[in-house]
């Protein structure tokens, strides 16, 4: 009887420890997950609304002013970020005078998604949905916000080679 209760206690302790390890595992996965974010500066149509590409845009991810991403119209770049929560600051800049015409900052929660594409013109216009479908070769889970069925890119530029998932 006594032996049985000791075994039961031991089993409970082991199960609790196992559960704790699984919880820690999920925590580590969620907060250590690297996200590959494609920043797309093309004219796009999202939910029937057209967002025009900016002539020149400066993007700062997580306030890292030392590494701004500068994109001209019809350009796309990729940035890798760790953890779920991020801030993307979009500055539409007049290239000649280097004067900031418009600034928009937005918080994102990428959750568990590995790769996603964000429309910079949509972010600048404070669109409710800023996610775009990934380029063909980048198989990926759907974006956090549901995209409309008729969502299409209006530009037909030369397809930029999608970056590798990780290097």
């Amino acid at each position, binding site marked *: 009887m006594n032996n049985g209760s000791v075994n039961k206690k031991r089993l409970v302790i082991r199960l609790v420890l196992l559960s704790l390890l699984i919880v820690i595992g999920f925590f*580590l996965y969620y907060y250590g997950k*690297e*996200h590959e974010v494609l920043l797309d500066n093309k004219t796009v149509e999202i939910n029937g609304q057209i967002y025009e590409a900016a002539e020149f845009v400066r993007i700062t991810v997580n306030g890292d002013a030392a590494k701004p991403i500068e994109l001209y119209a019809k350009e796309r770049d990729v940035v890798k970020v*760790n953890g779920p929560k991020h801030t993307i600051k979009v500055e539409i800049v007049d290239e000649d005078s280097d004067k900031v015409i418009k600034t928009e900052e937005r918080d994102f929660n990428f959750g568990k998604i590995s790769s996603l594409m964000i429309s910079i013109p949509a972010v600048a216009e404070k669109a409710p949905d800023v996610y775009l479908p990934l380029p063909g070769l980048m198989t990926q889970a759907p974006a956090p916000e549901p995209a409309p069925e008729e969502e299409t890119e209006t530009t037909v530029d030369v397809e930029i080679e999608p970056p590798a998932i990780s*290097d």
Partner: protein
Amino acid sequence: MADKNKGSMSLKNILANNAVPIIFIGLSAIAIPISGFSANYLIQEMLTRLARNSFLVLSLLIPILAGMGLNFGMVLGAMAGQIGLIFVTDWAVTGVYGMMLAGLIGTPIAIVLGYICGAVLNRAKGREMVTSYILGFFINGVYQLIVLYTMGRLIPISNPQLVLSRGYGIRNAINLTGVRHVLDNLIPLKIFNNIDVPVATFILIGFFCILIIWFRKTKLGQDMRALGQDMKVAEEAGIPVERTRIIAILISTILACYGQIIFLQNIGTMNTYNSHEQAGMFAIAAILIGGASVSRATITNVFVGVVLFHLMFVVSPMAGKELIGQAQLGEYFRVFVSYGIIALALVLHAWRRMRAKAEARRSLRGEE
């Protein structure tokens, strides 16, 4: 008694007990000036290699304490660590989180493998080293079967950079960009002339050394020591011999798993099918060069061994090049030395055992 003490402290005994490190200090003293490396470069290399390898080598201490000799089965733990790293690379979990998750995934695998190893070694008492060596080959086969045929097929691996072009199996080399130097650069510190010190890794190693010192004083640690001295006496004293031996191997395997993760985060690239094979051999060579034997090893042996072994690693190819004009020859020499030293240590161990037996016989006969 006094005579016995005097005898044990004799110069001959000191030389006999520390023959290997003395030989290596001598070799290094000759090779360093020939190689022409600067002190700065050598200090940087030694600090990096100490941080990279110490944890793996320290994982060998517990089985030696328990009288199980050099745990060639530590490669099992290394494989577990590598499986953890494959998964975190696939899931793109990076930074310290990625390293910890790799450790977390590797731990249950290391526990299972360690238990298997311990159980097998309990059936091969007195022949633990050769058994664990061969067991390493066997589990390596299982590892290769899993990694080469089930990953990407039965075990989902989504990252195309990890999977072979045929659609399943892991590529030969994996780039560990996500975890590269994360522990080493966690607390950045530069000393003297821009020498990088991996502070966080050394803190972890220091913590582990304290843990070993504490562990030796615990009931389990004392049981292991008793086992190491005489298994039959320990059994008569009521120590659960087989259980204690399994625990010793289990601890060693788990620590080897963490050691391999620390090692690979420093290297930054994983050779999927070979990295673990080298881990065991080089760790064992290092601890033996540090003056450890099959039956006795200390923390000092670990650090002295890592420094001397890796000093030879760095210096010998360049010394070979300067002497003969071929770096390859120096490299051959280093490989010859690292494997030769294991053979030498085993021969010395056998010789010491024979000498101890002969002395015991003489003392039973009442001879001097």
